[in-house]
């Protein structure tokens, strides 16, 4: 079985995606669990011309930096479709086909790996950040 890896947007137009990475888990207040769409997680700021960033989630403030990935990544989308023509072809044993489409690439991430500081004032958060047991 052979699955073609395509890039339907075209290599030159392939867009760059981004990653924000935290050592921790973001929790949503129970009443908001089922309406996440457009809910704000937090505010990301770049205070100076350095590639340092702060990320405020609920009453936690994280500090981090933008870093180039050691190795680039691509974002692949699995596409399953029923190929009527291929059903006749005995080389494929099933009548559904899978393709992989490259929808983007990633070269940078904004990484937060220090313990957050707690902000004293601020509204009751609908989203808060919880430190992982193994956090830095």
């Amino acid at each position: 079985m052979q699955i073609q890896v395509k890039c339907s947007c075209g290599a030159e137009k392939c867009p760059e995606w981004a990653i924000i990475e935290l050592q921790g888990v973001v929790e949503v207040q129970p009443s908001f669990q089922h309406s996440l769409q457009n809910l704000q997680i937090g505010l990301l700021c770049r205070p100076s011309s350095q590639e340092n960033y702060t990320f405020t989630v609920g009453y936690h403030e994280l500090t981090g930096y933008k870093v180039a990935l050691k190795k680039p990544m691509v974002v692949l989308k699995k596409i399953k479709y029923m190929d009527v023509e291929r059903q006749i072809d005995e080389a494929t044993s099933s009548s559904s086909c899978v393709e992989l489409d490259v929808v983007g690439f990633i070269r940078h991430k904004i990484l937060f790996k220090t313990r957050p500081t707690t902000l004293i004032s601020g509204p009751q958060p609908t989203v808060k950040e919880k430190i992982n047991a193994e956090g830095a």
Partner: protein
Amino acid sequence: MMEQPHSCCKGAEMLLNLQPTSSVSIQYHPFFGPHDDLVLLELDEKLLSDVLYQRVTLRGQPDEDAVLCTKSKTYSVKFVGTSNSVFLIPPADYSTSHESGGENYNQQVPTASVIKVAPGNMELVEVAPRLDKLKSILSENLYSSDEASTAMGDLYKWDDLINKVQASDDELKAGLQALSAVEIDGYWRIVDEKYMDVILRMLLHNSVLNDWSLDSLVEDKVVSVLESDGFPRKLVYHCLNVYGSRVEEAMDGGVWRLDARRVCVHFARGILREGKRKMESFMEEWLRMIPEEIQPSFDMLEGEVLTEKLGVETWVRALSVSSFPTTPADRFSILFKERAKWEWKDLEPYIRDLNVPGLSSEALLLKYTRRSQPSIDAEPVFSAR
């Protein structure tokens, strides 16, 4: 290039180009979800353009671990999880299969939306092509002299082999060459050794009859004579390919030189097919069979035969490296079943073809064998770990 002004206030572009003293609101995307169909694949810089320009495929049967193939290399694909939260942020104009709906044209605040929290990413590790399967499926139906009556069961065209064998195109071609496979009527076949023997002997017989030099066989003559003897044209060419090579310097092309080692190995294998022989008996028959023009020497047979001392006698038996699996663990396992202890000079021909990207032969020995040295001036000996 950004076409619409408002798209640079959103998405990955916004985030990656965030200016000093600016901020961006990180939100859950309107279509946030598990999106198991979105996968991250980490790759070396040099593979990026192969992927973007659609030069890679995934190969494998449903019950196998998938491999990713470029034109010339094979990589295993492994998932590596992370305990971190990896928020994946697409570009501003990304939408899933749903239509508009998520656009928030009233947004004044710059936003970047998270479509998914990735549990990890796929990684690639370069591996040797998995060619053992190629040999076994092509051996199911050897092409023999009574082809018409025995051609049943599965035969494989190039596209069938791509579907079944986890190797890149270039590695598959090299594998077919190593097996001396030949394409007949679009199907790749391995020719039965006994049939090859018949064709080779006929070629040699005709060389004597017609006074042909084995160093400069004229293709057209050889093919027409053997064809009139009843051999298919394709197989005559195949015989020249298997036992000889084209003479490049010949003016009008189509001139072949038989390869001494390949011819000698062929006859040795034939003699030893029925079992081991005493050295004298083997040598006597072997030398008799080899055509006059060819100078045999015993070291042509390394990697093809093993000599053993049983009492005062030296015996020879067939042990061809080509019959062994290509994966190191299986190869060493079989070698140590054949013989518990090996000296380096005997072992080397049987492992020299092992290919593990990133592992030298010293590293292979370290990994799969135990080295011992009975005394300082004795040869080191390798045995199973």
